[in-house]
């Protein structure tokens, strides 16, 4: 077939599949979270029996600080990678993973406190149902994120991370920022809004 060739194929630029792939995945995950957030908002203040949010929830200050600052450290790690500073990358990337692990520890401690001292379980009331499912879904995404971070960290420490992996790293950092953004929503809805709603 004889195609017209006046347009120069060398000028043809398209977005990177990995980046667009992760952004699409984030879009799908956002839809998933939306339903759980709406369920939480819908049942807010409608529990028939206690415990109620204002009785048992405490503002998760340390966990929040850890998660939010991890978005900064992952940015620093990426900047090191672009500058070719591999030890710096491993350091900040490791700090990011550690902050994620700390957030999970914090959530675990919070849940232990709620379950064994405040008697709030998934089956207690609609608050328990929507609280554990929403916060749990987010925590599950943090777990996945931490595993991804650790995978990259291991290959970086073994010296297997090369310049052609920058896109992998970037994709994971997009995902991590997304998990962070979701936490802003969860924090606002669960820990700021719902504790102020009268029962």
């Amino acid at each position, binding site marked *: 077939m004889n195609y017209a*060739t006046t347009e120069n194929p060398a000028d043809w630029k398209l977005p990177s599949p990995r980046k667009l792939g992760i952004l*699409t995945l984030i879009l799908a995950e956002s*839809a998933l979270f939306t339903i759980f957030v709406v369920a939480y908002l819908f049942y807010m203040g409608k529990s028939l029996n206690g415990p109620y949010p204002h009785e048992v929830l405490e503002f998760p200050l340390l966990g929040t600080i850890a998660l939010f600052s991890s978005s900064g450290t992952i940015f620093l790690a990426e900047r090191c990678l672009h500058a070719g500073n591999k030890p710096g990358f491993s350091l900040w990337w490791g700090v990011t993973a550690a902050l994620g692990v700390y957030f999970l520890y914090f959530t675990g401690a919070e849940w232990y406190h709620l379950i064994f001292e405040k008697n709030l379980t998934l089956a207690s*009331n609609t608050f328990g149902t929507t609280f554990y499912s929403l916060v749990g879904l987010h925590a599950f995404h943090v777990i996945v994120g931490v595993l991804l971070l650790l995978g990259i960290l291991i290959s970086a420490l073994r010296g297997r991370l090369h310049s052609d992996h920058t896109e992998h790293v970037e994709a994971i950092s997009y995902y991590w920022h997304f998990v962070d953004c979701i936490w802003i929503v969860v924090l606002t809805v669960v820990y700021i809004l719902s504790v102020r709603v009268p029962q």
Partner: protein
Amino acid sequence: MSQEIIIDENYRMPEPVRVGEETGSLTRVMQQLVFTVDHKKLGLMYIGAGLLFFVIAGLLAGLMRIQLAFPNNHFLPPDVFNQSFTMHGTTMVFLVGMPLAFGFANYLVPLMIGARDMAFPRLNAFGFWVFFFSGLFLYFSYVGAPGLYAAGSAPDVGWFAYSPLTTKAFSRGHSTDYWTLSLLLGGIGSVATALNILVTVFCMRCPGMTLGRLPIFVWCMVVLSFLVILALPCLSACQIMISLDRYLGAKFFDTQAGGDAVLWQHFFWIFGHPEVYILIMPAFAITSEVIPVFSRKPIFGYPIMVAAVVAIAFISLGVWAHHMFCVGMVSLANAFFVTSTLLVSIPTGIKIFNWLATMYGGKLRFELPLIFCIGFLFQFLIAGLTGVMLAVAPFTWQLSDSYFVVAHFHYVLIGGLLFTIFAGIYYWYPKAFGKMPDHKLGLWHFWLFTIGFHVTFLPQHFLGFLGMPRRIYTYQDDRGWDTMNLISTIGVAIQAAGILFFVYNLIYSYIWGKKSGDDPWDAWTLEWATTSPPPEYNFAKLPVVKSRRPLWDAKHPEDPDWKHE
């Protein structure tokens, strides 16, 4: 620089032995199916699996029609009837409609945009196998679902599984869990494939294939994938909630503990209505390719056609509660959803008029694909008109959950979707197998299926007016429903005869069909630029595109499209 290269003249490279090609033929075919990441093979596997499930769900429908042929019939017990309509609906939506759409998208999108494969070939295989096993899992419920309680076998809660039917109290055993987990699994596969299609279209186009030059088929598949990405996770959320309710005592839909059964309906239809447009999108896609080629004219109003598809998808995200006019929403909500639903008819009307305008003054070639598309135009119009009727809340108050609704959505999904699927299969059959489908057998298929379809579903509109509710397993003989039910059942037999001709045609043409050559329809999109069937790498040299009809440009260098676009 001192390294010497020794050249041994007598050395011959050993023939590479590829995995799956070393043993006898059946094993080899099986291995190729299991190992393949080729978008064309996976596309055909999607279509094949979709047609297989279509036959199974069609048989279930046949059983239900036999049961309903006469009043007070006892062909099927009530519990088996409930399982049959649940499995029929679930299968047709999740294991037939979506896989067929993905099959066509998989096979054609890379070819149409001049790419060598999908963006993520292994993810593609993952998506197919997850879908296929979710289907097997659903059907395994017939064997595995009784569980410890020995109650129920296949799921029997209807394809939208309204709460509280799905609670432990009303659905003992594990049938609902098979339904839930199967859809959760299938949802993951669908999102994977939709993601793949989106990334492929945006990142893999050949030089010159700008978004404004994409075939409308590809545009429709992009829109379909966006809808899948936005809607399917909502379904997954629903399934997670049911599982938490059933197994961990959560209260999402437990009304006694303050849960809300209507919330399930909202959540389900937030997924469910975009799903309807996911299912009809392949119809728009295929029609927009077939009608121009067989009218020998470029599509009328390309930008408007694309805008209409995007508008339909956008509006479809805000119409879900028109499935719920009868649950007693506030008037404002009713008014909103009536209005938004009626709005859909505007872009849909634009599409119908543009297809007609494409045919108007064209040199029509009445080959099988065009014949089926013309059937689609008439039947989809009827489906659209009953849809507009049902969009009006007071009308729905009268006819909701009646056979009128059943007739409406079968006109959409069979008269609309399935007819274009047949058109698409006949249109691209030469591309996939290098053989022409037999015209005469195809005509038998068309006429038997069309007549059978209308004989089955036209009377169901009137049964709805006469008050026959959907999902009843039998009825008394003094209702005046018996004649039309009998006619409807006879129609199923005629449809089945048509399907037999279709299946026979596929096999007959594969073995004895005429060789088609690379471009039998004298078409204009890139998939016809390569051989039939295409090689694994699709294009030896990636094409460069300058207009919306690259093959027209290639065939008519004296008057190419890009001079006029």
